[in-house]
């Protein structure tokens, strides 16, 4: 099922060379290998150690060729094509050499092809046939590796050294693609074997289970356990991963309606054939026994659930919503849109709210992650989105990563980043914690600015001060592309002594000399790109920090071409898309404010309903209004605010105060404890649609199995709308996209036909850019001239005191995803089975805390308990944890402080105290919440 493999990577060159291969004339870019040129000419040269995703290695000695006028038999994978060269790939001598090589391989390889998991897909088996091997003279009597011990420690793949031909493809994939350098060839000569770490098992080594080695293996040495167990797939369907905002393309390999494996799609432009442990392996949740596949209702949250038909559940929901609106007004209900659902589904939910509910009370989990990105980039650059493709990084000379841990949150981007750093780009990490990319193998950061949590704006403004006062501005770019007045005001502001690195060093905790060095590097180091994450946005000044980043890019001319730009790393798979689709209470699809009359009228005409010109409630405002008894009904699709949102006690109290909470999800999540209606959701494998990743790339999601509950999420929303008396009738998500395109200028040129043809599209996609826009702002900003805004640093209200002397900041780990609803139901729990609190050795010693101890953690909002990891990854005075497990209660600690512009919660700064406790606390959250997940036994009658 793999596509054509050219054997070695493509080469880009301005010069072309023409040569003859087996009498066929072919022209290729200079530097192209003979092996690749041969494939272009229609000739396949036998090979084992070569594949086009890896640099040529020249070890298998199977791809030998003869070149007229030259001696010997060079390897075609490592020999570049030259002008006028005459190459022969099939001669009696070459055939003899290849057969001899194959004979040696096979003499130390088990002959169990019929029972081998790779049977029919094994390159060794294929090559044996290609070279015409008919006998093996050496037998198995001599030394061999046939009894070598397999390693089955990894939950997803096995390693059988008996089948290894030591081609190095796995080792090179780990180095070149993933950048982990976790496996190597140990020993020399006959003793050479692939080994993980220092002779450890795969599970005990630094292997991150990305699967690149498995993908690269030409035999069954490294093999997915699902293939071993189930056999090979019958068909493959290309779709898009439903985990992070990288949006990797995958080929879902299927046996009937069952997924056998997910293989990263080589043609996928976001990932180019790479993947991480989540997308590659952690898809088993889709068929986990915990899936709820029957709609359920109950009168109160203390009752047991009762399974009902779809019709009854939807009629009950519609009746309840209308009852609440009739009693408390039409603004008393609203909806949360999922950033895990498709664009089409998100569009339908906001349409349901605006047209059927009759208000704008619709929000998305982007509220609690990247809403400051939308605000900050919209105000400065004119478009609420990142400016580049991920591939653009390949042309960066300086990469600044601020408040992001891509090794954990966006692993495929991290691999690309490390590759670029290994190639010579300078990396700057601005983060309170030592993330994985700071000291990656052979890709060490040039600078790590360990700032104090909450001081991003101080640091970014100090960088701007250096650029403005040391003559590092790109005056020509600014004059041509930016507003003169706003620039002059900004320049005056940042140049003030109060914004100098020296003035802000004490506050930020970053040495002035380092700030100056980083500013100079960013401004003068060539193409400089900024990548940032939730460590920028989830602050009281999140929007200000995003603005400060955009200011830096404009001031140095680092925008509008490849290799530069401002790049938010979006958390969930369709955060960008849910924002694009108008899932906010103040904007229609395409980021147009609800008060904009022409826009509103266009939607009114299309939807046949008058629409509100007033902004609706944001998520935290919904909860406040619930406690005020003015917001009493919530349609929550694919979100879990009871676990993911800050100040959990407040959220739970608000949910408990509502009269009708409808949860649409795969599982009974934490929010479902407070729900009155449960509508079964569909996983990404069960529906058609599109996701939009952090590059603005719209990619197809394709249904590979029927929805387990009978409905895809778009069908459920449609049915609810019909039950409410507002008709929606779409026969396929393609029709929904047609409506989106008709009403949204930046999507005007998007259609399923075009996506089918091009694979993916980056918006804006319109008449001006019919095949999309990889790089934004190339000639002008979306609103004309770039706008500088002043970024006054305002310290957070969340301050350390004697009672709360430590700052807690939160994040993610590689193997778990968000609130863990999906990944906790996979073997990924073997990599991370519980959330822990990271604490610096000094802070631990001061409190008598040792590694593995249980500690109580108390903040102004609440308390919880976690086990401790003592590590210097965090600085003194800072502690860190993740929020993947509900029992950890990380968000019991976080406060209701939020970003000034968007109400994005200040997850990243919470003052806490930590104290050792004798034993783990009793985890009794169900009792604490007073809510239940029980399902009533089926009625015997």
């Amino acid at each position, binding site marked *: 099922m793999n596509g054509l493999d050219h054997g070695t990577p493509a080469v880009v060159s301005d010069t072309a060379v023409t040569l003859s291969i087996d009498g066929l004339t072919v022209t290729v870019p200079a530097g192209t290998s003979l092996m690749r040129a041969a494939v272009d000419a229609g000739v396949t040269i036998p090979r084992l150690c070569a594949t086009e995703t890896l640099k040529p290695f020249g070890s298998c000695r199977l791809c030998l060729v003869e070149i007229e006028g030259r001696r010997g038999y060079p390897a075609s994978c490592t020999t570049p094509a030259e002008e006028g060269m005459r190459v022969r790939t099939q001669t009696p001598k070459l055939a003899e050499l290849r057969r001899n090589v194959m004979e040696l391989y096979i003499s130390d390889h088990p002959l169990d092809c019929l029972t081998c998991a790779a049977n029919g897909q094994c390159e060794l088996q294929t090559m044996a046939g290609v070279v015409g091997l008919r006998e093996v003279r050496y037998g198995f009597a001599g030394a061999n590796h046939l009894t070598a011990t397999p390693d089955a420690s990894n939950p997803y793949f096995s390693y059988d050294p008996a089948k290894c031909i030591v081609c190095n493809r796995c080792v090179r994939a780990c180095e070149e693609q993933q950048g982990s350098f976790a496996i190597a060839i140990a020993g020399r000569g006959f003793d050479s074997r692939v080994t993980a770490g220092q002779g450890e098992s795969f599970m005990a080594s630094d292997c991150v289970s990305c699967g690149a080695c498995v993908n690269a293996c030409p035999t069954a040495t490294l093999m997915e356990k699902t293939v071993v167990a189930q056999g090979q797939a019958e068909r493959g369907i290309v779709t898009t991963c439903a985990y992070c905002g990288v949006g990797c393309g995958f080929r879902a390999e299927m046996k009937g309606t069952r997924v056998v494996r997910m293989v990263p799609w080589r043609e996928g432009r976001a990932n180019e054939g790479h993947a991480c442990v989540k997308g590659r392996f952690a898809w088993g949740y889709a068929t986990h026994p915990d899936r709820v596949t029957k709609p359920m209702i109950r009168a109160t949250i203390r009752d047991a659930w009762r399974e009902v038909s779809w019709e009854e559940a939807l009629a009950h929901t519609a009746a309840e919503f209308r009852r609440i609106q009739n009693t408390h007004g039409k*603004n008393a209900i609203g909806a949360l849109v999922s950033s895990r659902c498709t664009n089409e589904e998100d569009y339908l939910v906001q349409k349901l709210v605006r047209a059927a509910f009759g208000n704008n*009370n619709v929000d998305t989990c982007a509220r609690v992650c990247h809403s400051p990105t939308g605000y900050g980039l919209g105000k400065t650059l004119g478009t609420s989105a990142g400016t580049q493709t991920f591939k653009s990084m390949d042309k960066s000379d300086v990469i600044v990563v601020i408040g992001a841990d891509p090794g954990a949150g966006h692993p495929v981007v991290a691999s690309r980043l490390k590759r670029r750093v290994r190639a010579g780009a300078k990396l700057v990490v601005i983060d309170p914690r030592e993330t994985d990319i700071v000291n990656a193998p052979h890709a060490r950061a040039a600078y790590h600015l360990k700032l104090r949590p909450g001081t991003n704006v101080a640091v970014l403004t100090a960088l701007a001060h250096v650029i403005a006062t040391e003559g590092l501005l790109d005056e020509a770019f600014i004059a041509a592309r930016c507003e003169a007045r706003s620039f002059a005001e900004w320049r005056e502001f940042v140049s003030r002594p109060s914004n100098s690195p020296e003035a802000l060093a004490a506050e930020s905790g970053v040495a002035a000399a380092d700030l100056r060095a980083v500013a100079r590097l960013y401004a003068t180091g060539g193409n400089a790109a900024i990548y940032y994450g939730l460590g920028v946005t989830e602050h009281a000044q999140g929007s200000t920090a995003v603005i400060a980043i955009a200011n830096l890019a404009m001031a140095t001319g680092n925008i509008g071409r490849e290799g530069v730009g401002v790049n938010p790393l979006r958390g969930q798979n369709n955060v960008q898309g849910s924002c694009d689709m108008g899932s906010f209470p*103040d904007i229609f699809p395409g980021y147009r404010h609800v008060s904009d009359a022409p826009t509103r009228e266009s939607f009114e005409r299309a939807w046949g309903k008058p629409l509100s010109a007033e*902004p609706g*409630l944001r998520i935290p405002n919904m909860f406040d209004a619930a406690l005020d008894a003015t917001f009493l009904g919530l349609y929550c699709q694919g979100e879990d605010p009871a676990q993911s949102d800050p100040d959990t006690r407040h959220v739970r109290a608000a949910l408990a105060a509502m009269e009708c909470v409808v949860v649409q999800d795969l599982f009974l999540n934490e929010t479902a404890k407070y729900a009155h209606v449960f509508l079964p959701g569909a996983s990404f494998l069960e529906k058609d649609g599109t996701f939009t990743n952090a590059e603005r790339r719209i990619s197809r999601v394709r249904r590979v199995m029927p929805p387990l509950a009978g409905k895809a999420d778009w069908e459920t929303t449609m049915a609810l709308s019909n039950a409410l008396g507002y008709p929606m009738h779409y026969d396929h998500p393609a029709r929904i996209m047609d409506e989106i395109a008709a009403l949204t200028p930046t999507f005007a040129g998007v259609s399923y036909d075009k996506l089918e043809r091009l694979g993916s599209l980056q918006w804006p996609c319109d008449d001006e850019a019919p095949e999309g826009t990889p790089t934004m702002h190339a000639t002008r900003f979306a609103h004309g001239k770039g706008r500088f805004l002043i970024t006054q640093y*305002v310290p957070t*209200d969340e301050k350390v005191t004697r009672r709360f002397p430590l700052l807690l900041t939160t994040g993610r780990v590689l193997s778990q995803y968000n609130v863990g609803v999906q990944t906790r139901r996979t073997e990924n729990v073997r990599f991370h089975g519980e959330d822990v609190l990271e604490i610096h050795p000094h802070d631990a010693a001061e409190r008598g805390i040792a590694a593995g101890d249980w500690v109580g953690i108390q903040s102004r909002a609440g308390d919880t308990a976690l086990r401790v990891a003592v590590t210097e990854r965090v600085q003194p005075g800072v502690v860190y944890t993740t929020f993947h497990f509900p029992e950890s209660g990380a968000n019991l600690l976080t406060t*209701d402080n939020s970003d*000034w*512009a968007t109400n994005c919660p200040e997850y990243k700064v919470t003052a806490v105290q930590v104290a050792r406790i004798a034993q783990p606390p009793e985890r009794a959250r169900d009792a604490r919440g007073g809510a239940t997940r029980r399902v009533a036994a089926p009625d015997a009658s």
Partner: protein
Amino acid sequence: MNTAKLIKMANQIGAFFDAMPDREQAVNDVATHISRHWEPRMRAALARHLVLHGDAELMPIVRHALPLLDDFRVAVVPTPDERTGRQ
């Protein structure tokens, strides 16, 4: 609505625009931000609170900005609870 939270939010908005050199524009921007992003019941709750309890907790820039909005120019009749100080 929690008026203490609304006051804090309004002051946070004020703190951002307070740094802008054009004072008139900054005041307008505060008003516009609240108008475009706050749901009417939030604006109404803050307006009611200000009428009943004064605007001393607000930053000056916010104090100047709010009267630009219709919501903050309405007459407020206190409820019996509000008259007796119970909220």
